[in-house]
C-alpha cells in the first residue's frame, strides 16, 4: 500500500519533533559511534547494546535535520530487539530502497515513508543506517572494547 503524502509527512514530522529514544547513555555496555555527513551538518551519536546476538537497546543524540532525525527514530524503533542478521537484512533493504533499487517493501514497514526521497536528501536518510552498520562491523571485529 502506498503511503499518502500527507500521512508520510505526518509520520516524518512526528518522528522529528518527538523522536524515539533520543537520549544519551554513559553505560559502557553500549557501543557508540558518531555519524556525520560530509556534505551536511548532521551530527548524531548512536549507542547500541548487543547481547546474545541481539540489538537489545539503541538510542541516539545530537543535532540533525528533519530527515536524519526522523529516520533515526523510525529505524531505531524497527531494529530494537532484532538479531544482528535481521538488522543487517533490514539495513540492506533500507539502503536499496533509498538508492531506488529492488527491495523488500513488507520488511521495511514504516521506513517506507522514505521511498522516493529527493536525491539531495538520500545521505540524510542513510545517516542512521550507516552508523548502525558501523557499530555492527565493530561488534563483529571485536573492536567494541576499544571504541566505547
Amino acid at each position: 500500500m502506498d503511503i499518502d503524502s500527507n500521512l508520510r509527512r505526518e509520520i516524518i514530522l512526528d518522528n522529528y519533533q518527538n523522536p524515539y529514544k533520543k537520549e544519551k547513555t554513559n553505560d559502557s555496555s553500549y557501543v557508540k559511534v558518531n555519524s556525520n555527513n560530509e556534505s551536511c551538518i548532521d551530527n548524531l551519536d548512536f549507542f547500541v547494546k548487543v547481547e546474545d546476538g541481539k540489538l537489545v537497546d539503541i538510542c541516539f543524540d545530537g543535532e540533525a535535520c528533519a530527515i536524519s532525525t526522523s529516520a533515526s527514530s523510525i529505524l531505531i524503533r524497527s531494529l530494537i530487539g532484532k538479531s544482528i542478521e535481521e538488522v543487517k537484512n533490514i539495513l540492506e533493504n533500507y539502503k536499496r530502497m533509498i538508492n531506488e533499487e529492488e527491495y523488500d517493501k513488507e520488511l521495511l514497514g514504516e521506513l517506507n515513508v522514505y521511498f522516493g526521497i529527493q536525491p539531495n536528501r538520500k545521505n540524510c536518510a542513510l545517516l542512521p543506517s550507516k552508523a548502525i552498520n558501523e557499530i555492527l562491523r565493530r561488534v563483529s571485529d571485536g573492536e567494541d572494547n576499544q571504541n566505547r
Partner: protein
Amino acid sequence: MNREDFPMLQKDIVYFDNGATTLKPRSVVDKMVHYLEDYTSNIHRGDYDAALRTNEEYDGVRKIVGDFVNCDLEEVIFTSGCTMSLNMVVFGFMKNYLHKGDEVILSKAEHASNILPWIKLSEEIGIVLKFAKLGNDYELSLDSIKEAITPKTKVISIAHVSNVIGDVRDISPIGKLCKENNILFNVDGAQSVPHMKVDFKESNIDFLSFSSHKMCGPTGVGVLVMKKEHMNRCNPLCYGGGMNQFFEADGSYELKSGPSKFEAGTPPIAEVIGLGEAIKYLEKIGMDNIHKHEVELKKLLVEELEKIPNIILYNKKADSGILAFNIDGVFAQDTSIYLNSYNIYVRAGNHCAKMLKDDMKIKNTVRVSMYLYNNKEDVLKLVDVLKRSEDIFKVII
C-alpha cells in the same frame, strides 16, 4: 548592480552564498578561455610568442594585486588559495620564527584555516594560543586584543572580517599596536579583500591572505602578501622547478629570492590571469561602492527580518554583508533546504568557525552573505519566503 555581467544570474536564482564562493562575470571567464584557447604555454621557460605573452599576463597580475591592496609587487605570492596562504605563514615562517612559550593571539570566531594550523604548530613547538575575548555581539574589539597582549605576545592572527559574524575588525589600529609592540600581524583577508578596500602598508600588516574565488575570480588560486623583510626567513612548503637558482650532486643548492621561491612547479596560470581580470572588474565598480552597497542591503534585510517574530538574528550590528540567523526551532539545514525550494541559495552550518559555538551557545546557523550583484529584490524575496515559513515542513518533506 552589474547583474547582467554574470551568466549565472540569468537563471532565476537568488545567490546569497558569497562567503563561500562568488559568481564569475563573463569578462573573467572570457579572459581565461582566451589564454586556454589562444596562447596556452608555460611561464618562465619559453622563448616563443605565446610563452612571452603568458609571462607578461601572469607577471602582470602581481602588479594588479599590488596596486589593489597597496603592497609591492615583489611581495605578492600566488598560492592555491587562502588556506594555503595561511598555512604557508604558519609552517613556512612562524615555525622558524617562534619559540616555545611565545604567545599568539587569535579569536574563537576565526575560520578553521586560521586556527588549526596554529593548533598543529603549538603541538609541534609549544607556542601558546590565546583567544581574545569576543564581545556581546561576538565581535572582536581592539580593547579585547589589547587585554590579551602580554610581553610574550609575538603574533596577532585574525580575520579582517569574520566569516560568520561579519564584524569588521579595526585592522589599522591593531596594526599600529602590533608595530609599537614588536608583534607580527597576520591577517586573514578572505572575507574582506573581496568586499572593501584593504591597505597592506597603511594597516601595518605583515602577512595578508585571500582567495580569488571569493572575489569574482576562479577557484584554485589565492594570494599571500608577505612583507619583503620576512621572505628570507620563510621556508617554502614545496620544492621543485621554478623556485631554485641551482642544485648540485653534492647537495648544494640555492633558492630564488622573492615570490618565485614559494611558487614551485607550474602554477595555475589560467586562474592567476583570471584573478587579475577579476580585480580589474572590482576596481572598475569601486571597492567603497561595493562595501556600501552590501551594508545597505544588510540593513534592509535586518529591518525586514526583525518584523518576523520567529527569526533569530545573531549579528545585526556587524558592518558587512553577512547575516547569520535561524528560524526558531528549525535546524539550520532544514531552513537552507527550504530556501532552496524557492531558488534562494544560502549556507547552513558552523561555517568552519567551530569554536564560535562556545560563545554563541549554538552550533549551526543559516548564513546570508551578499555581494555586489545582490539587490533589493533578492532581499525582499528572501524576506517573503521566510515570512511564509510556517509551512516549511510541508515544503521540504
